[in-house]
Every structure is written in structure tokens, then in C-alpha cells.
């Protein structure tokens, strides 16, 4: 594997995640390359979302969640006691499984994140730019003052992406962003991701193997340990290699659909 000429944004070391006393993810090490798309695949419940949420400390919002190990972001451990999760999240944005626009106007949806993060520039410009980057501008430019809830599911999700990139994060986390969308809307988001990756580092959780193969540069395969039901990173590498010549038998079973 050839990682050495990349530039790494995240470096996870010996990560363990717990919900109460249940260990959901164990002993995971992983590095994420900058301006690339990394996909997390694996069966449901194996801890993909949990790992993803450690990247911007969204796990903090779940009262029972606890994390040990290090999540280094440019060398700084995000779980250091003196790190401010609010600061983390403005640099590392997130798009959720179900489109969740605010029940406000389209414009406000995009502007709000920028405003609370102290954006002082031309807001109209920023909103337009963000919507353009999210490939939504042409569809909504005439109805910016209408509610974001009036859009179709795919449009809503692109609105959420526009909203996420408005504060100009460095990384965008996406947790199964297309699972609630139809195939055409899904395709649009996938194209969009290929555009966005020129400027952003993207990590996406998906259970759609096709999607992982199509859009991602790197792929990480997670699996649940049979004994303690804890999630575990099985194999990680360049997407092409994972899908054509996986090293681990379990990975091969999964991607060839023989998983059971």
C-alpha cells in the first residue's frame, strides 16, 4: 500500500468506544488522507457510525457514550480535555443519514451555520457559493425564502451539504447520506462528492458496496467480533485493491456477497 505521499488529516490510535458498559468499537487504528474520499463499509451494527462520530465528537451528545484512545486531527488529540467540541465541529462538518434541514428558509438554512460561527463577509455571496458547490443553486435560486422542508428528499440532502460547507470546514463526515434517497438523487450526491473532494476531505459511511467502489479512494472494512459483539477494523486500503484483491478472507466474503 502506498500512503506515504499523502497528507494525513486524521490518525486514530487504539480507539475504543463504549455505550455504557457495552464496547461498540475496539482497538482501532486508522489514518485518513486529506482531500480524498474514505469509505467505511461493513454490516449493520459494526460501529461505522460510532467511529465516524468520534471525528467531530458528535458522540458527546449521547449521554452514555465514552471514548478511549486518541483521535489525532493534524496531530492534536480531539479528546484532549482542553479541546472544545464546538470548535471541532465547525472544522469538521457532518451530513446525516436522514436529511434534516432546519424548518427555516433555504437561505437561513445555509446562512445560520456561518452566522453563528462569526462569518462577517457577504452572506448572500456565501449562500450562493455554498449552494452552487452543493449543485443545488439552479434549482432553488428563485425560492431562497421558502422553507427547506418544501424540497424533495434529494434536494434536502444537498441543502444539508450546502449548509455543512458554508462554514468552510476542512472535513465533511457523511453517515449513509443516500440511504433515504432514490437512485437518481443518490447519483447526484455521488457526483457532488467527486466535485467536493477537490476542496474537502470526505469520510462516508455506506452499506452500499457499489457506492463505496464508485466514489471512494480508500475503503475501510469493519466487522463485528463474534465473541464480544464489538466492532473491529478488518481491512483498510486503496478502494481498488480492497475490491479486487482483498487480503482478508472475511472482506472477500463481504464484498462478494457471501457474507452471512
Amino acid at each position, binding site marked *: 500500500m502506498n500512503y506515504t505521499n499523502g*497528507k494525513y488529516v*486524521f490518525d486514530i490510535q487504539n480507539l475504543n468506544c463504549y455505550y455504557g458498559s457495552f464496547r461498540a468499537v475496539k482497538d482501532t487504528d486508522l489514518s485518513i488522507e486529506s482531500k480524498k474520499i474514505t469509505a467505511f463499509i461493513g454490516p449493520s451494527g459494526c460501529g461505522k457510525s460510532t467511529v465516524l462520530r468520534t471525528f467531530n465528537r458528535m458522540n458527546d451528545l449521547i449521554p452514555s457514550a465514552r471514548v478511549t484512545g486518541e483521535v489525532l486531527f493534524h496531530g492534536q488529540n480531539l479528546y484532549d480535555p482542553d*479541546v472544545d467540541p464546538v470548535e471541532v465541529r465547525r472544522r469538521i462538518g457532518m451530513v446525516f443519514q436522514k436529511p434534516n434541514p432546519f424548518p427555516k428558509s433555504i437561505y437561513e438554512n445555509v446562512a445560520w451555520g456561518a452566522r453563528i460561527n462569526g462569518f462577517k463577509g457577504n452572506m448572500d455571496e456565501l449562500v450562493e457559493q455554498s449552494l452552487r458547490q452543493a449543485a443545488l443553486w439552479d434549482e432553488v435560486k428563485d425560492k431562497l425564502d421558502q422553507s427547506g422542508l418544501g424540497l424533495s428528499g434529494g434536494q434536502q440532502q444537498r441543502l444539508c451539504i450546502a449548509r455543512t460547507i458554508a462554514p468552510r470546514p476542512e472535513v465533511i463526515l457523511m453517515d449513509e447520506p443516500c440511504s433515504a434517497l432514490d437512485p437518481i438523487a443518490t447519483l447526484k450526491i455521488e457526483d457532488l462528492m467527486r466535485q467536493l473532494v477537490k476542496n474537502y476531505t470526505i469520510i462516508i459511511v455506506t452499506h452500499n458496496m457499489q457506492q463505496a467502489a464508485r466514489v471512494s479512494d480508500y475503503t475501510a472494512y469493519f466487522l463485528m467480533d463474534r465473541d464480544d459483539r464489538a466492532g473491529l477494523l478488518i481491512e483498510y486500503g486503496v478502494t481498488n485493491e480492497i475490491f479486487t484483491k482483498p487480503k482478508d478472507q472475511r472482506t472477500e466474503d463481504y464484498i462478494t456477497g457471501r457474507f452471512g
Partner: protein
Amino acid sequence: MTVSASTRTIAKTAAAAKSDLHKRLRLGESFIEAFLFFCGAVSILTTLGIVFVLGKESLLFFTSGEVTLWEFISGTEWQPAIGRFGIWALLNSTLMVTAIAMLVALPLGLAVAIYLSEYASLRARSILKPVLEVLAGVPTVVYGYFALTFMTPFLRSIFGDEIVQIYNTAAAGIVIGILVLPLVSSMSEDALHAVPYALREAAYGLGATKLETAIKVVLPAATYGVAAAFIVAISRAIGETMIVAIAAGAGPSFTFNPFESAETMTGHIVRISGGDLSYDSIDYNSIFAIGLMLFVMTLTLNIISRHVVKHFREEYE
């Protein structure tokens, strides 16, 4: 993982200086959280206040030397003027009013609940629910007026003026029953509603009629929820004040005749404190002893009811 070992150094050197994620001092946030916590803590202060106030004044009452605790909880005569403080004179009428109220509210409330949940059409519900809500929203002083100017004359026209006194516990009790009826019916209906539909289907599938399903399957399944409603209703009736203050009569009297006037605990508190009483007199202290008793009774009932409800929820959720 072998993967990251080779990259770790790169990650570390890749500029930790990028931009700092250090904790900001968010004074506003901390201040707001502290304020919100204070808002929640006010309720604790309220409870402590109630316990302290009732406890302290009651203590003064019992240490005044005019009455012993035993006299208080066993006596049947309440005559402060001659130093008689027997709670049964008041407690008895409270219990009597409550019993009469429950005779009205429990069967009626439960029947209404069964009708609403098992029989009523959507249209009937849409009329009945607001009627019950209005009944529940009428201030108790209005019910007091109703008891005195309607229920009492009504009872007198049935049983005769010689038998039914102008102030009596029967009229007050019946009207309290009407007052708590919406409470009983809505809580019971919620309980009946929570019984899974599958249970009804099972009963129908065995050839049960609607009545048999409602009475022999749904109602038993909702026992705990209905019981909780009954207990809350009892607690409400015990604590109800204005109806008895207006219609049950002034002056404690230990009687089991519902057509005679008899002052209840709450009625007594209102009458004594409504007058010009001087603080630190034995009369003043005595109402706190009554209040403490009232508080303990209603609190106990409410706690029991909530445990019963919890039991019910665990059964079906």
C-alpha cells in the same frame, strides 16, 4: 493495524499548529447553564419550603403544651377555644366527602372511559372530549357555587328540608365527584387505550362480544392504569378546598350523617386563615398541623399512584 504505524509520524508532523481547538472560555454558556439549573432547583426549594413551613409550625403546635400528639390523632372533638384539638372531627368529614365523591366519580368516570375508548364513534368523541375538558377547566369556586345553589336545593327537594341541612357534606361530596370525573375518565381512558389492539383481536377471535372484550379482557389488562387514576382522584378530592368551604359548612362536627354540616380539614384551614388571626397563636399553628397531615396524605397517595402507573407502563412498553 499495520496501516497506521507508517503514517503516524507524518500525521504528527503535519502541523499541529494548523489552528487551535483549545477550549474557549464560554462564560455566557456556563452562566446560562447555571441559571437553568437554578430554575430546576426552585422546585426543590419549594418542597423544602413546604416541609419546613408545615413542620416548623406543627412542631410549635405540638410543643405548645396545649395538645399532645396522641390527643391530636385520636380525638374526635375540635374546639380550640377549650383546648380540644382532635383531628377526627375534621378528618372524618374529609373522608366522608371523599367517599361520597368517589361513589360518584369512580363508576361514572370509568363508564365514561369505557364508552369513549371502546364504543364511541369518532364524532361522539370529538364532542365528549371537549365537554370533559371544559368540566375539568371550571374553577373550583364555581363548583362551590353550584353545590350550594343547585345541589343542596336539589337534595332538599328530594329528601326534605328537615333532613338535609343548608350546609351538608353530601352536596359537597357529589359536586367534588363531578369535579374529578373528567380526571378519572381521561386517565382511565388513556390506560384502556394503551392496551394493545392485538389483545382485543384475540378476544374477538374467540367469539367474545364487544362487552365481554371490554370488561373481561381490556379492563383487566388496564387494571393498574385505572387504579392509578382512582388513587389520584382520591388525592384530589381530599385536597379539594373551595367546594367544601362553601357548601359543607363551618364548624367541625364529628358526624356520619352526610346531610349534616361538617367542616373538613381544608375547609377549616380556609375559614381560620380567612379570618383575622394573629400569628403565633395556637389557632394559627393548628392549621399547619392540619396542613401537614393533608400534605402527607396526598403525597402518599400520589407516590403510590405513580408507582402503580409505572408498573402498568412496564407491562406494555
